[in-house]
């Protein structure tokens, strides 16, 4: 099971960064940002562009983050300045990014095997753990600052923020830029991990991200875990489940359905498992009192 577990951990950590990014918009800001599907490959193609021009992998990866945040800025402009509905703004950004991604390198698949990456000379999983933990810690610190609190407040109760004399739009902007920057970062990491940037990388990525966030929310529901921790555990769990499904060697056509069924089973057990023991305890106590 060794290489398979390792691969699911590695892919899980890359998606953990993605999940933290999506958590900011979908969960905290309550903004359904669909541009993620375009921003993820954007990170990959920006990285590819820079690395093929001879820039070092670290700077190229950071460039991906930067360009990702610009994508967030685009969605912001569409939503706030042009007053287009949130969902549509994200979709429009995603559509624009499809062409941008193709233009960046002039091709839809950029092989990166011959170029250096952030994983050169080090254990891949070690680098990924460092990045995921760093992102988590920085995000936790940020969410405890004044700006962070106002960001959370904007998602919870925009009117309250406005009544405090703050411009809620400013926090939406920060949230969108941060979120898409992280998604692009995740895309750049994935490109280096899989060895190529591919235009279809982003297809279905929203499902993966949201599933990771929700699975993370449901694990140890009653434990007091930070949002960022939940995003990371959710992504790892989701990928691990996928690996189990593949390792079981099920009929290839059933792969997707089995994946979903395992997630459902896992979530149901988690939802009803802990409540079960609570109910049992209560019944036992009541019985004792009789």
């Amino acid at each position, binding site marked *: 099971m060794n290489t398979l577990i390792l*691969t699911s951990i590695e892919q899980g950590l890359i998606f953990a960064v993605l999940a933290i990014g999506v958590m900011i918009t979908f969960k905290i800001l309550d903004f359904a940002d669909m541009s993620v599907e375009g921003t993820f490959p954007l990170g990959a193609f920006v990285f590819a562009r820079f690395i093929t021009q001879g820039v070092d992998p670290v700077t190229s990866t950071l460039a991906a983050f930067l360009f990702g945040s610009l994508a967030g800025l685009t969605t912001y402009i569409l939503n706030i300045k042009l007053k287009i509905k949130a969902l549509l703004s994200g979709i429009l950004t995603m559509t624009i990014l499809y062409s941008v991604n193709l233009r960046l390198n002039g091709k*839809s698949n950029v*092989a990166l095997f011959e170029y250096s990456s952030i994983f050169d000379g080090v254990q891949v999983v070690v680098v990924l753990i460092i990045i995921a933990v760093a992102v988590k810690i920085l995000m936790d610190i940020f969410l405890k600052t004044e700006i962070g609190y106002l960001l959370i407040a904007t998602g919870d109760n925009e009117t309250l923020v406005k009544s405090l004399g703050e411009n809620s739009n400013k926090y939406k902007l920060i949230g969108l830029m941060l979120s898409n920057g992280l998604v692009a970062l995740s895309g750049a990491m994935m490109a280096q991990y*899989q060895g190529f940037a591919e235009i279809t990388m982003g297809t279905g990525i929203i499902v993966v991200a949201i599933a990771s966030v929700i699975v993370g929310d449901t694990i140890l529901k009653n434990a007091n875990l930070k949002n960022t921790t939940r995003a990371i555990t959710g992504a790892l769990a989701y990928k691990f489940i*996928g690996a189990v499904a593949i390792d079981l060697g099920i009929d290839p056509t059933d792969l*997707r359905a089995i994946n979903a069924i395992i997630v459902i*089973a896992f979530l149901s*057990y988690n939802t009803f498992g802990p409540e*079960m023991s609570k109910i049992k305890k209560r019944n036992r106590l009541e019985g004792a009192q009789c």
Partner: protein
Amino acid sequence: MEFNLIKKITSILLSTVFLLTACTGGTAEIDGAGTGEKNNNETFTIGISQFIEHPALDASRQGFIDEMNTQGVDVKFLVQNAQGDITNARMISEKFVKDDVDLIFSIATLSSQSAKQAIKGTDIPMVFTAVTDPVFSQLVSDINVTDNNITGVVDAAPVKENLELFKDLKKDIKTIGIIYNTGESNSEVQVNKAREEAEKIGLEIEPVGISSINDIPQALDTISKKSEGLYIITDNMVASSMPLVAELAKEKGLPTVSADGTHVDKGILVSKGISFYEIGRQSADIAKQILVDKTNISEIPVQHSDRIEKKVNGETMKALGLTKDNDAFQGAEFVD
């Protein structure tokens, strides 16, 4: 009592999943029934990594399995399909590495690129197929050199010869249209190749890109205005909507040429090119050389398909007002 029911349902669900996986676990493994003389008593395990369900890719897989059986090699096939998900493709390759397979057969570019990453640091050989340009995809550094345990059979078509067919199909033809998925790198490669070859014979290519199947009717409209013929490249999106493309082209009176015989079955006028089933068989031959004959993989450079077939669709031919004695149809198999 309510929660007992829920607990029951959950445990039934869980056990169903595990039962299912236990039962169907066998279908993903195919034991090769070797016919004819067995070469030796060794049983090999081959991991087949297919990227997506698709007639051409399915044909390659079948061709590979059939040829291994015909040659009498005792093989246990582990068949996995990434269902179009790149991360799955990687996990599938890693699973094969973990299972220590004797060889990985990868079908299509994305599965092959993913497998390349997985076999790094191992000595598992890899044979790919249904890849148009392995140098562009960096599967190999040079088409004639195999130095990283990776070789295979490309699905490149005889472009120049196919474009020349147009000259026989329509007198004084000047511009040929191509419809392709902008998101497929293999298609870009083919469009560029077509442009190159077209220039050599005095023709112009007018490519129209699509990003979804819904764009096809509009694309065909544009092509019929600017071009006098339609060249069908091996593009997954176009291939999956072939009946529609063929029908629209026929309506607009555009002669169509493809490199894939299965397209002619769906209505394309004439095809001259590779058979995906055959390149699957060719790949199996390479695999046999590596596993049974113990040939060093570095001595097997990437191969092109060694069988060209020609097919014509009789109905489409009549609809376009052409006859069997047209030069373009010489030596072709006629289907309706």
